[in-house]
């Protein structure tokens, strides 16, 4: 409770009335948040045990945002996200085992082990990728929305696109080019700035001349709104309203969710640029215990229920790790399978030590 009060004082948001929500929905939000938390903590551990390579960015501290956004997004909608994508994949319904297997680089991973942590993808779930290039997802997401206008009409059942980006990403050109395109083309898309107050270590204030990032939509006459990213219901409501505008009016929106990154930029970042006080403050603002005590206070959960959900999450994540561990590595013989979608003459299938011309036969190259 104490932490929530601090959160509200800090953000200035009025929390929505939880009594208006079906208890089962709230309980499910907490379940999902708990699953993401458990998954991320375990991913952190697996990275340290060298089961996971490359970069690994976690959604710790952003669980409420993730769950709020993904509960607003319908199955028929499309999602483009950043490299900080594990939580979104789980909340979009991808199997935790297949997500963990991707982190482990296994052939059973959601991207067959070819993408890794930053590049989760599931065509069936319409999760069209985590993207590792800052801002790189924004133009393709915009084009996906353009394609929707080509195939379908606006209306309450129309499809829409949600495109996520970080606060630091609002300074990249692709963001501005894309918002302009979405506005002039009237695209069914919602851009969501997941503002966790930091790029890697650079604060929003040091990076952005207009630090109230949702206002950046003004240049494109695009409605902008800021919501409390620590509250899944508030996030869901704002996202749903924006998605409705996208579906029925083809009016793109810019939504900004305010949360805190609990740990470093990626698992290897000790975040020494944060003072001891700042780190403590961020821990006090942790949305998970805050939401838990709100639910208990509202009579939706009791402590035993909460513990049961937490244990269930631990169990699911343990199974995910087990699945990933037991899954096979991709085969070197399949290295070239996904070089091209359409087979093409003279495509190279050469490994580093192999000659350009595989067969050195006398009729072609031998000394005469």
């Amino acid at each position, binding site marked *: 409770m104490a932490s929530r009060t601090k959160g509200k004082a800090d953000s200035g948001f009025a929390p929505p009335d939880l009594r208006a929500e079906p208890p089962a929905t709230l309980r499910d939000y907490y379940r999902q948040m708990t699953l993401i938390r458990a998954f991320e903590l375990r991913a952190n551990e697996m990275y340290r045990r060298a089961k996971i390579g490359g970069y690994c960015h976690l959604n710790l501290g952003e669980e409420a945002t993730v769950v709020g956004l993904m509960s607003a997004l319908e199955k028929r909608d*499309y999602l*483009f996200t950043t490299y900080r994508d594990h939580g979104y994949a789980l909340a979009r319904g991808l199997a935790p085992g297949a997500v963990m297997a991707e982190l482990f680089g296994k052939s059973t*991973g*959601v*991207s*067959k*082990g*070819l*993408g890794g942590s930053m*590049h989760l*993808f*599931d*065509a069936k779930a319409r999760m*069209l*990728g985590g*993207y590792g*290039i800052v801002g*790189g997802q*924004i*133009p*393709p*997401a*915009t*084009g*996906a*929305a*353009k*394609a*929707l*206008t*080509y*195939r379908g009409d606006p209306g309450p059942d129309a499809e829409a696109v949600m495109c996520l980006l970080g606060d630091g990403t609002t300074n990249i*050109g*692709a963001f501005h*080019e*894309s918002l*302009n*395109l979405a506005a*002039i083309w009237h695209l069914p898309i919602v851009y969501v700035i997941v503002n966790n107050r930091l790029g890697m270590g650079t604060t929003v204030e040091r990076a952005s001349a207009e630090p109230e990032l949702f206002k950046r939509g003004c240049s494109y006459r695009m409605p902008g709104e800021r919501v409390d990213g620590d509250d899944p219901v508030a996030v869901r409501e704002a996202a749903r309203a924006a998605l409705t505008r996208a579906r029925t009016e083809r009016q793109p929106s810019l939504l900004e969710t305010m949360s805190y990154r609990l740990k470093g930029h990626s698992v290897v970042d000790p975040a020494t640029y944060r003072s001891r006080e700042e780190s403590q403050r961020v821990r006090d603002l942790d949305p998970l215990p805050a939401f838990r005590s709100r639910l208990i206070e509202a009579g939706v959960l009791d402590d035993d229920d909460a513990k049961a959900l937490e244990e269930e999450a631990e169990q699911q994540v343990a199974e995910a790790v087990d699945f990933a561990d037991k899954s096979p590595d991709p085969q070197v013989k399949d290295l070239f*399978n*996904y*070089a*091209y*979608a*359409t087979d*093409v*003459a*003279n*495509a*190279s299938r050469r490994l580093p030590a192999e*000659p*350009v*011309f595989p067969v050195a036969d006398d009729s*072609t*190259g*031998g*000394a*005469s």
Partner: protein
Amino acid sequence: MTEMTYRQALHDTLRAEMLRDDAVVLLGEEIGIFEGSYKITAGMLTEFGDQRVIDTPIAEEGFTGAAVGMAMLGLRPVVEIMTLNFTLLAIDQIVNHGAKIFGMFGGQTSVPMVIRTPGGGGQQLAATHSQNLEVWYAHVPGLKVVAPSNPADAKALLTASIRDDDPVLFLENLSLYNTKGEVPDGEQVGEIGRAAIAREGSDITVISYSRATLIALEVARQFESEGVSVEVVDLRSLRPLDRETVCASVRKTTRAVVLEDDWLTYGVGAEIAATIQEGAFDRLDAPVRRVAAAEVPLPYAKPLENAALPTAQDLTKVVGEVLDATRFTR
């Protein structure tokens, strides 16, 4: 067969593909109302409407990336970028996204898009508007890069590029648009990844692509009158590269010169020369020579521009030197 310009072949092919498949859409700067900087899309907006012929703002990264997303959802966008120089503003979307999305996500979605763009200097457009940067793209797995030299190949390869499920960079050239040639009637689907023997010969091979092929053919005709038989290999596809055809020709002629419009260092000719030393070394009678652009930002002043770009005289001189070095008697 109908004789037509390279421009007409491109226009007619775009139109035919749009009529055939409503997933084909065009986008780019000034392609609609203005009918394209080089008028390739003349009349298209009127015929197909603004849902399929999409004028974009001046935002290369934005609209090229948007085409990536349109392709992911099943459209077949054909993007026109005014010149190859301006593709640099879109290179992140081309290289880091278009070329990666199929492979990096385990083959779950393809990116069937075409980027049409002219390269080339020689129009006194100075340093930023005259570049031949095709190797930047030809270097990248996941992309296909084609560079047809004549109207018939332009038709066949554009058709193939539009129907291909991978991103294709379709290189045109400012000085080719008005060139003419015989074009087979009806549907023609070319094969990406195959070079052509543009002219058969037995004494020396000249390897080139795009505009340079026309120069190579001109020089070959001149040498014929001197009793020298020049074979011209037109690469047509820079990625994949048809190394077999190049080496088969050089094994036959024993001499090779590359004519390329790009800069020499790390250019197309460097790759061809390396290919020949690996695939035809024992048959070579002389080192492979390269005729390539001088390594300067291209000047505006005509005499300097002329001096910096490879010409028929340059190629004639180098072919002559290779023949002389191998004591070829004419």
